[in-house]
């Protein structure tokens, strides 16, 4: 066993901690770990290149960018904000909660709905910002970034803690395949059933945090933090929060 191969992990941790460019960090980590394990440089390059070509399907999602881009040119984000502003009783927190639950339910049934590029940037994030503007009027730059981050988080958390209920998902098949190599045969359905308690807890825990967003927005509106002066993006000529 090559204990020195663990050096690569140290490189990754150090690289991210020191905020070195992640591409460089990864390349160095691969080189260090491979060399420590006695793999020749050419083989490291080959192994890395092979894996890179095999994982290109991760990059296919960027195909949606021209569609989202052209719709943004014609006012998609502005429209999303207007639509939400017209609905009564919609708040940033409740909107995020609704999305979390829908995302989780869809993932549980294996429905490929959502996505950071497909839904969060063009629709969910502007809708949440629009809802917050309706709630409290002025939304500071800091709040805007915080709400956007929450939109991305609702997407990921909904996906993660919903998808394992669906039997044909990669993680369930991986658990099944691995246990099988150890001589334990299980049905995917048996595994997915035990993902349900965590799914419920995720909906409750994260849902509660999302509802607290509304309270925090109200509190901050009542006593705005003094740090920022140029925070009113809703009336500045830059429009959508510097999203030019």
């Amino acid at each position, binding site marked *: 066993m090559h204990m020195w191969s663990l050096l*690569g992990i140290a490189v*990754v941790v150090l690289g991210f901690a020191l905020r070195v460019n992640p591409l460089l960090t990864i390349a160095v980590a691969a080189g260090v770990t491979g060399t420590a394990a006695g793999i020749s440089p050419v083989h490291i390059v*080959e192994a890395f290149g092979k894996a890179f070509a095999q*994982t290109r399907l991760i990059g*296919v999602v960027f195909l949606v960018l021209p569609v989202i881009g052209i719709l943004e040119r014609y006012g998609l984000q502005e429209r999303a904000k207007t639509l939400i502003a017209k609905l009564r009783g919609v708040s940033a927190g409740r909107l995020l909660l609704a999305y979390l639950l829908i995302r989780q339910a869809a993932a549980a049934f294996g429905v490929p709905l959502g996505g950071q590029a497909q839904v969060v940037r063009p629709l969910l994030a502007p809708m949440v910002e629009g809802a917050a503007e309706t709630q409290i009027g002025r939304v500071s730059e800091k709040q805007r970034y915080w709400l956007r981050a929450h939109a991305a988080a609702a997407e990921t958390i909904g996906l993660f803690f919903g998808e394992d209920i669906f039997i044909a998902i990669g993680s369930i098949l991986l658990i099944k395949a691995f246990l099988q190599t150890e001589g334990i045969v299980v049905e995917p359905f048996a595994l997915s059933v035990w993902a349900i308690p965590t799914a419920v807890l995720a909906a409750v825990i994260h849902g509660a945090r999302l509802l607290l967003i509304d309270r925090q927005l109200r509190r901050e509106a009542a006593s705005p933090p003094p740090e920022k002066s140029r925070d009113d993006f809703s009336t500045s000529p830059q429009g959508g929060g510097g999203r030019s």
Partner: protein
Amino acid sequence: MITLEHVYILTGLMGAAFTVLSALDQSNPKRWGNAAFWGVLSLSFLFGSELSDFWNGVIVIVLVVIGGFGLMHRSAAVTSTPQTRRAHAERFGNWLFLPAIIVPVVALIGTLAFKGSAFIDSKNTTLVFLAIGVLFALAVCYAWLRPPLLAPLEDGRRLVDTIGWATVLPQMLASLGAVFALAGVGDAVGHIATHTLPLGSPVAAVIAYCLGMALFTFVMGNAFAAFPVMTAGIGLPLIVHTFHGDPVIMGAIGMLAGYSGTLMTPMAANFNIVPAALLELPDRNGVIKVQVPTALMLLAANTVLMAVLVYRF
């Protein structure tokens, strides 16, 4: 049959268009860096399946050099002004949502309708229909909005430039995982975990397994990489064989404990770093920061759940 290969070629062609537009963009002081990056990346999509492993590796090295040493610069936006956007939004109304919804809806219907069809690569139906949905949505946009011919590509480049070199980060991390696996990193971690942690009681074993899943996932950026290591190292020998826990409950909840690690790590770039770039957050870790409280509470909850359930069934 339409396969993933066709989707790669389409993606590569889009990258080639970004390359040309970047090279022509005189407003960008580092236009050649951008053009080189998108150009080499599009080579990977167009020819990656034909190239040898070594030349695919060379592609990666070139991307790392361009992206890693700051040879790229985000291009200035060539798009509409906020005023015209508001006017357009007023004019086109809620119909603007339609093309945006076409993509996921086509992906969904296609996935369900063509499951096991001979025309579509059955392993990648959703991705194939994502591409088909994109083409369909673009056709609708051209017919309805009548944008300038290159507008979708210009706006696509505007968005991809907000992400920049981070576009390849998820692939880079997945590839690093492959090199780690080849070098036996997983075995080494499992060895250390089982030889240094106090695992004398059933509950201690559960705690070590769940925390180990989260921690190793945090380091690797992927619960799938952590699962075989921690399960072979702690889960099966201790929880199942020594203390007679249920392997099904252990596996299902153990994987979910790992997801808490995914929510907290910059290594899970496609979930945490790319969205932060896509949403133009000034803080690269902005998404992670809002996820940490939920991740920690769920990790605790999963540990308790497993401790309560795994020895009972």
